[in-house]
């Protein structure tokens, strides 16, 4: 048991450190996934199978996948890697390193003065459920509202209005027409032909 724990912990730390220092974002994401899986293993060893499963399913399974989708949408490529190389000079690591060391010292001090403890028992999912829908019921409701807010916010921020986009493009094309010396009466952007586009320009002219 203990060996599994140490190995999983080591994997978690190493993969997190690797994740931080990568230049390519996708590589970093994949290392993060590994780290999360290792932490799930640690949870399992600690006697919390419910959270271990939750960690894999939601954290590694949903959130990280979301990240990867967004990265794929952005489609940055080589340019991004070169920019990262330019940005990541060794001197950029000095401040964070100092802060991290200080934190580790405080952490070690806290743990050291706490004393040893033995693993008591494994808490089954049933126990968790009883506690969740018992004393922490209010918290559950609030979390559901938080998730609702998250959904609405994400939807709103993510949705780009087609009319909005069209009007931006129309302004661009107006400028193009002015530059080329076009007649304002003449409809049509010159970018897309067809009378179907005429409706979108009505309010701009």
């Amino acid at each position: 048991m203990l060996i599994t724990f140490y190995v999983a912990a080591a994997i978690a730390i190493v993969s997190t450190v690797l994740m931080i220092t990568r230049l390519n974002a996708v590589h970093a994401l994949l290392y993060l996934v590994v780290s999360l899986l290792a932490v799930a293993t640690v949870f399992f060893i600690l006697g919390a199978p419910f959270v271990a499963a939750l960690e894999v399913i939601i954290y590694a399974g949903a959130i990280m996948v979301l990240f990867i989708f967004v990265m794929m949408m952005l489609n940055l490529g080589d340019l991004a890697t070169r920019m990262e190389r330019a940005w990541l000079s060794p001197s950029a690591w000095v401040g964070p390193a100092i802060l991290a060391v200080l934190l580790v010292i405080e952490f070690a001090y806290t743990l050291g003065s706490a004393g040893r403890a033995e693993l008591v028992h494994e808490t089954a999912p049933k126990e968790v459920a009883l506690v969740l829908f018992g004393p922490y019921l209010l918290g559950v409701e609030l979390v559901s509202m938080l998730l609702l807010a998250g959904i609405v916010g994400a939807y709103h921020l993510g949705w780009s209005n087609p009319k909005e986009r069209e009007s931006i493009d129309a302004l661009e094309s107006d400028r193009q027409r002015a530059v080329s010396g076009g007649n304002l009466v003449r409809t049509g952007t010159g970018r897309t032909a067809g009378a179907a586009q005429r409706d979108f320009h009505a309010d701009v002219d």
Partner: protein
Amino acid sequence: MLQLLWLIPAIPFASTLVLALFGRRMSQRMVAIAGVGSVGLSALISLAIVPASLASGTPFTQVLWTWIDVAGFRPEIAFYLDPVSLLMVVVVTFVSFLIHLYSAEFMEDDEGYARFFAYMNLFVASMVVLVLADNLLLLYLGWEGVGLCSYLLIGFWYKDPVNGLAARKAFIVTRAGDTAMIVGLFILFHTLGTLQIQDLMHLATVHWAVGSPYATAAAALLLGGAVGKSAQLPLQTWLPDAMAGPTPTSALIHAATMVTAGVYLIARTHVLFTLAPDVQFAVAVIGAATLLLAGCSALTQSDIKRILAYSTVSQIGYMFLALGVGSWAAAMFHFMTHAFFKALLFLASGVVIEALHHEHNIFRMGGLRKELPIAFWTFLIGGCSLAGLPLVTAGYFSKDFILWGAWTSPQGNPAFWIVGVIGVLLTGLYTFRLIFVVFFGASRTPVTHRPHYRIIVPVILLATLSIVGGWFKRSLVTFLNSALPPLSEVHVSRLSETLSSIFAGLAFLLGLGLAYLFFLGRPEYAESLMRGGFMRRLHAFWLADWGFDWLYDRTLVRPFIWIATLNRRDVVDNAFTAVARWHQAAYYALSRTESGRLRWYAAAIGAGAVVFIGVILFT
């Protein structure tokens, strides 16, 4: 009738207010009526009060209201009428009236007509308050008021910065004296508990012995104030430069009235001076030294008004000499005659200046005897009175009285008498030098302007008074001696009064003769005298007022300006703005932390978290 006493300062003061507020909208005629009429009314009232006051025979006090009432300090607005103040009030208001009438025509072309009369009326009101004041605080109020009006009127033509400088010089120099005076008032109040003059005099004789240090200190400080206001040594430098003001101002303020305020102060507080014989001796010494010094300086000047200014300084020196030897009535008598003939001289010189279109240099005037007969005869009468033409003129009687007192009084001294006689010689010399150069000889500048009745009447009146004023000597002295200690004639051995008068008369004739010789008869003697190097340097030295201006410039003005330039950035002010600037610096520093960069904020959060954890763990 005596109840009308308060109207004497109140009417000119009301006129000042009216002219200050509405003067711009009033026609020149209205302004003249208000300005001259108010002082005229005051003069009438003061003349009307004379018989009532003589009849009552005791000093009259009129209390208007209590000014301050704090912890036992209770000065009131109260007027005190006794022979001394009655004489001063009558002379001041009457001469002021004549000068106001004169200036109604003299200042006709000036755009500041209403402003001029407002200032002059304020001056008359302040001077009357000073003279009639029952307590030293009210006197100081009038003292400051006349100082203010002097400043305003010297710098009347403010558009020329030179006039502003002269006004500031007058104010600052008299300020030095005023500061000494207020310290003297502090001492008097602190030791005797009151500032009411009559009470003070009584308490002083009760509590202090002759030669007491308190009396000496208070008297010396009051003397400082008097020296400043009356332009005596060492504070006489402001009066010649004060001639930058209009001629009526010079006549009224710097000849007849304000400069005699110091004499009045000493006469009023004469008890203090008798209690401090050293200070009284100092008064006499200052008077004697000043009269010689100013006389010598007057001999070299070429500006007509400056000659008259130095002459004023010299004559007030005579008054101080009289006060110093204990001949109080003589000082007041000389004040009266001096007011008449000096105002006359200034007004006549104003006629000359106006006629020659603002020419001040006497060596560019000449031969005005035929062109301006009125100016000539009145100037001649005034000059003779100033120099002391025996038996005819008022000035002779008053000056003679002073010389006699300088010899016979217990505090008198033959040295003082000799100095006085030399002063008579000098006075005759510079006066007739002035008359001969201006009115005789060839005409150098043509006459462009002649005076009319408003100018002619006052000068003729003053000329008459300069002659007849002396005939009332005996009754006047008796009158004054009911309020001031009479002159005790002690040293009668070697000189009698007649002999002293004869010496004075001889000095006058010698002065007249020398002036005739050097400036009319044989001018080449004067030129040959001036060719010597020593004489030229002496001439320059006397022309520069015995180097006092140079001395003050080197010892006071330049170090002060040097210190002020050291403090250019104003240390004290910086101490206060440092607070504001520190705040601003802190603001800039703090606003720099709001950089708008997310990484910076995150780093700050991280560092803050580390610090907090550390604090919780380790403390």
